[in-house]
């Protein structure tokens, strides 16, 4: 396989357990390649280690094994090349919306003049539709507006990789829909490489080029890479009229309801046998099932 923009190689995370000398394996053998400009969503049940993977990509956590290479450089710590949007906005509450974005812009380009920083920050706040609220502090903004400031802040530093950890998880459904479309708009203008964690299948189908599916932990794995074969620009209102929508949606839901548990059991059995857990996800296109490969040998292996 050719080297992609972001290479996640044989990533594993194990934690010591309080009542046992054995390590608890959260996930292992994760091999994923992400291309430049790709929008990738990661879906999995709680506790499978999604957020840990994201934190490793952000440089905020160190994996037990494996490494991550972005643009031919290993990620060893947090940097401005990886922008992060957390679920709980994490804006600095003593700064206005504009100052929060300017804070990030200043970190990125320390030698810019104040006027230039301001202009740059306002451009991104304008993109998320916050022209009227730039002077307000986070406490004076609604949850959706705060998350928009977080998006503006992350896009404003123009990172090589944008990481989002369930960015809309705390928002109500209506607000979420509006911000998803705004995110699509900004993304289509900037073509950032995005890695996003979500629980929402429809959100993933709307936004992503590819959806990575994780099995349940412990010994979680990225089992499938589902191609979202729906042409862009996509719109929320007409998404379900696309031919590919229901096959994809059914596949994702089916995986989450049944597959994640079954594959998890197999993975745990394999781990008990001591098999090498490293594997790349099976590439699936539910909209064109004839192109799908047979399940990998590891999954059908007789016990």
């Amino acid at each position, binding site marked *: 396989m050719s080297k992609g923009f972001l290479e996640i190689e044989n990533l594993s995370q194990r934690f010591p357990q309080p009542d046992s000398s054995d390590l608890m394996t959260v996930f292992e053998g994760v091999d994923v390649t992400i291309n430049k400009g790709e929008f990738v969503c990661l879906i999995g049940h709680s506790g499978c280690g999604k957020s840990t993977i994201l934190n490793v990509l952000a440089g905020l956590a160190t994996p037990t094994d494996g490494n991550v290479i972005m643009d031919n450089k290993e990620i060893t710590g947090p940097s*401005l090349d990886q922008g992060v949007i*957390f679920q709980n906005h994490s804006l600095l509450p003593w700064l206005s919306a504009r100052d929060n974005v300017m804070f990030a812009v200043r970190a990125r380009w320390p030698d810019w003049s104040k006027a230039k920083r301001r202009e740059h920050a306002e451009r991104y706040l304008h993109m998320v539709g916050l022209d009227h609220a730039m002077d307000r502090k986070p*406490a004076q903004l609604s949850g959706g507006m705060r998350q928009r400031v977080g998006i503006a802040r992350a896009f404003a530093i123009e990172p090589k990789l944008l990481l989002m950890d369930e960015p809309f998880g705390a928002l109500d459904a209506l607000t979420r829909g509006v911000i998803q479309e705004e995110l699509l708009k900004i993304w289509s203008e900037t073509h950032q490489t995005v890695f996003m964690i979500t629980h929402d299948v429809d959100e993933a189908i709307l936004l992503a080029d590819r959806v990575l599916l994780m099995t349940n932990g412990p010994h979680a794995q990225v089992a499938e890479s589902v191609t979202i074969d729906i042409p862009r620009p996509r719109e929320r209102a007409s998404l379900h009229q696309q031919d590919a929508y229901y096959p994809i949606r059914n596949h994702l839901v089916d995986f989450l309801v049944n597959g994640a548990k079954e594959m998890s059991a197999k993975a745990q059995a394999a781990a008990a046998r001591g098999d090498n857990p490293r594997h790349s996800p099976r590439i699936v296109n539910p909209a064109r099932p004839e192109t799908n490969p047979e399940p990998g040998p590891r999954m059908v292996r007789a016990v």
Partner: protein
Amino acid sequence: MLSNLNLRATVLSLVMLVVFLGVWQLATAPEVLAPQQGEPSEYEQLMGGGSDRSSSSGIPAPTQVFSHAFGELSNPFYDAGPNDKGIGIQLAYSIYRVLLGFALAALIAIPLGFVIGMSPLLNKAFDPYIQILKPISPLAWMPLALFVIRDSNMSAIFVIFICSIWPMLVNTAYGVASVRNDWLNVAKTHQLSNLRTAFTVILPAAAPTILTGMRISIGIAWLVIVAAEMLVGGTGIGYYIWNEWNNLDLASVIFAIIMIGIIGFLLDASLAQATKFVRYAD
């Protein structure tokens, strides 16, 4: 509705004041009907009970206190020798000692608290000393301070210093240690240097807690200065009270008590005002 509430509270406050002053005035009014029984006792003589300037109990009536206060406040800065200075001068000495001791304490406590708050190791290492030193009455340091410093004025300032340092130290360390991890992650993902993180993230985040510590400190310092000045003497509002007690001038004592309360309130209010500038809604 709110202004209505404020108005009613003000009226109630005034009623309480009038009742209190009324009771005080009545209680200290000369007992016209009850004839003196024989000679005044020795205690009464000592307390000035036999003299004509006093009311029945020896406590001055509010009217006496107010006329005295008016006299003092109309010329607060006169200086007629070591034992006769205006109330303004005495208060200025006390405020100067409190502010100097408090400023020295802040100069040490806030940076040290910052370092302790950022380092779990130092936090644990310093903790036993802080816990033992904190409950010591600041006046217990006085003899040691007098012996080492050999200057009564500086010793009073030292006592203020030592009593102001703990609340600021403890609050700064706590405020810095409990800065939210999210905000520290923001600093990390933006690759801020440690110094920039300290000044642009941790300091503003911990500022309300630090200011709270400063407010507690200045309150304690103002409590302690009165006692310290009673001990070291010379100048200051504490010395003034003790001096007027020796003069058996209770009107001056009561007047000084009221002034201590007012200045203490103003010191606290000024720091409360400062807290408003750094407070943030979360």
